[in-house]
């Protein structure tokens, strides 16, 4: 009998030993968590200090709340398990490209009430608000927006003699000029003149922008049904232009089965002269590869036969679907203290000053920006005033990018966007690896596949 009792005790001990116990402690305050909190071992010490300052200010102003730090940052492969397990931070941020996936899956809270109450709906750019609206409800705060532009590596342009007498690039205005410029750079420096990704959906993402400029359309709603239409002569011309970069102008990087992160690497290490990207990734050139920040210039997207199109993208704050209204209120109060609120207050200004100061001290690029999230002129001025003393690059190198004249700003395609990008990735991979490939046949096949696999199943 004694033996049996001992066995039972041992088994119970093993269970507890393996499973472990966590006895939570209750408090009277409302607790919420803030995601993407800078990590202590992060090289970005300044950002960590800035968040700590926000926290001190928040605790002083709102003692009824407890903020938990959550170091998780949005990542495609970990998002779904975290969301399904109810483990998302109360406040998390993601990209414009992910909004529809997340709202469709029900992992973002409807924050219409708070958006209205805290003045976001009245003060935010309506075009951006449209991105987070579904069936009349709002599911996010688009706090940072940008458009696609061209990045130029100044060292390679200098070496290739592509700078004017004042030391600024002779920017290409059309796609044809862009290809020719890239070719001259390749011939004079031996380095790739242009970068084209074709994996992780990023090839398709960039190709949509190029094809719009050639007059292509991708999806059309006909009598309530979505049709894939990107095998038009315009889309074929766009694909032919990309194919020519490889087989006519010979200006692309050697390996085409790569994504944007490879571009950042090659660009930062003077292996590629020009590529398509946004202001959001500029800091990676400095933080990841120690690139000289004065070695970068940006310009607006080139003009194609149908116009000068540019794709808009950006970052959005979302609130976890399982958050209570009280927690959502806490989140909006946190945004106010951390400088992301719509109000024009001294506190808001101070938070923005701290942000730009920290970025400047880290050696990151401070200056270029794209679309402001705000329409209120005073709120806009607050941000510009906070930034002005910390601008650390020659803004003339970004003048053309910040000039929106003649630009047609276009959001992403509306339906099955990620699937479309993946389909186009495949098209680009063939076009850039097989010199005998036929752009028309490739797009015909892609349209048929995309229609059958995705649009018909909508």
């Amino acid at each position: 009998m004694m033996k049996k009792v001992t066995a039972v005790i041992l088994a119970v001990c093993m269970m507890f030993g393996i499973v472990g116990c966590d006895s939570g402690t209750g408090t009277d305050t409302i607790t919420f968590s803030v995601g993407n909190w800078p990590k202590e071992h992060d090289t970005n010490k300044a950002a960590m200090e800035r968040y700590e300052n926000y926290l001190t200010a928040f605790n002083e102003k709102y003692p009824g709340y407890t903020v938990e730090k959550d170091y998780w940052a949005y990542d495609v492969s970990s998002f779904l398990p975290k969301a399904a397990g109810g483990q998302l931070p109360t406040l998390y941020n993601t990209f414009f490209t992910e909004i529809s996936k997340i709202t469709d899956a029900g992992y973002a809270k409807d924050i219409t009430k708070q958006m209205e109450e805290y003045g976001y709906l009245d003060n935010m750019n309506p075009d951006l608000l449209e991105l987070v609206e579904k069936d009349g409800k709002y599911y996010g705060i688009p706090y940072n927006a940008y458009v696609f532009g061209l990045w130029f590596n100044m060292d390679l342009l200098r070496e290739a003699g592509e700078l004017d007498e004042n030391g600024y690039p002779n920017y290409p205005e059309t796609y044809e000029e862009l290809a020719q410029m890239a070719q001259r750079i390749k011939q004079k420096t031996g380095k790739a003149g242009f970068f084209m990704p074709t994996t992780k959906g990023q090839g398709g993402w960039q190709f949509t922008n190029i094809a719009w400029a050639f007059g292509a359309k991708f999806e059309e709603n006909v009598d309530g049904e979505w049709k894939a239409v990107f095998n038009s002569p315009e889309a074929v011309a766009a694909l032919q232009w990309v194919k020519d970069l490889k087989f006519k102008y010979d200006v692309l990087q050697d390996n085409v089965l790569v994504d944007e992160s490879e571009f950042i690497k090659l660009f930062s290490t003077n292996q590629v002269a020009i590529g398509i990207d946004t202001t959001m990734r500029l800091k990676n050139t400095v933080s990841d590869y120690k690139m000289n920040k004065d070695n970068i210039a940006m310009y607006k997207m080139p003009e194609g036969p149908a116009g000068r199109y540019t794709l808009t993208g950006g970052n959005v704050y979302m609130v976890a679907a399982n958050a209570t209204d009280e927690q959502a209120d806490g989140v909006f109060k946190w945004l106010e203290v951390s400088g992301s609120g719509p109000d024009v207050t001294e506190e808001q200004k101070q938070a923005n000053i701290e942000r730009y100061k920290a970025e400047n001290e880290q050696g990151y690029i401070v200056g270029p920006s794209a679309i402001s999230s705000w329409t209120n002129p005073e709120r806009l001025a607050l941000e510009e005033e906070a930034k002005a003393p910390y601008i650390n690059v020659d803004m003339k190198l970004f003048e053309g990018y910040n000039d929106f004249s003649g630009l047609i700003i276009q959001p992403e395609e509306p339906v099955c966007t990620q699937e479309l990008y993946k389909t186009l990735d495949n098209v680009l991979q063939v076009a850039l690896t097989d010199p005998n490939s036929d752009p028309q046949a490739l797009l015909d096949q892609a349209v048929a596949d995309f229609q059958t696999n995705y649009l018909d199943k909508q």
Partner: protein
Amino acid sequence: MERPRRAAGVREQRRSHVGRLVRSNFSAWVLLLPSILLFIIVMWRPILVGIVGSFCQMDGYTAVGFAGLDNYKAVLSDTTFLTALKNTFSYVFWSLVIGYLPPVIFAVMLNELVHWKSFFKFSIYFPTMVPAVAASLIWYFLFQPGEGGILNMFLGLFGLPSSQWLQNPNLTIPLIVFTMAWRGFGSSTIMYLASLQGVNGELYEAATVDGAGMFSKIRHVTLPQISGVMLLLFVKQIIGVFQVMVEPMTMTDGGPNNASISLNLQSYNYAFNYFQVDKSLALSVVTFLILIVLTVVYFKLNKRVSEN
């Protein structure tokens, strides 16, 4: 009436037999209980939940309705499915060609070594310690196309033209399999070596007395003695390679034009790139069923061969 009564009797007999078994080894069963529970929770529950989920319509990981066979129809009618299926079999085929026999040969050679045995054992096992993603990246750099690629520079030394390596759809799968074989080679060799060291030396002596040469000894003594381990590793390799995902994901993202996409990578794409967990589960179940069929067929064939 006779038959139900007999069935009830059999059931009762079985129950009392189980009861006796538990009572006679009560302590052992209680100590095993945590492991059994964990096995059910960690291994079987996810499989069952996955199978059930594949028949549901899901929002994220939450089932919102019964979908019947819709997910299966969607997955099987996807034009990528057949490509992924064909590629997955191609991965298995190339893994057997490239990676199955070399560890046996090296294990036999290692077993015969007198000096430097530990050094060679370590050298062979070393690649196994490299994480899958790191190994993929090492090979990714070696396989860089263009004249600046490391392997292409070697080809250049001999006046050979540069290769497109992973960008060549005909080479993609064999090259990915080669990197996998490089990494898995060490652990298989060590397993074979352990098995070889268990072979009774008297058998070789007897074979020598009978006039057997080296190859006869390998054929009539070594191979029959390690055939159990070879069978185990054969099945393990098929099952393992059939689930290939990390390598194509990091090296080619399934490209060019799906030339290296596998069933599991397509399943990953459904779940994480498109947030279609239901379809991802359906495809996983299809993969699971194919593996079960392959394993059963293999064991049946092997049994017949052994009997003959």
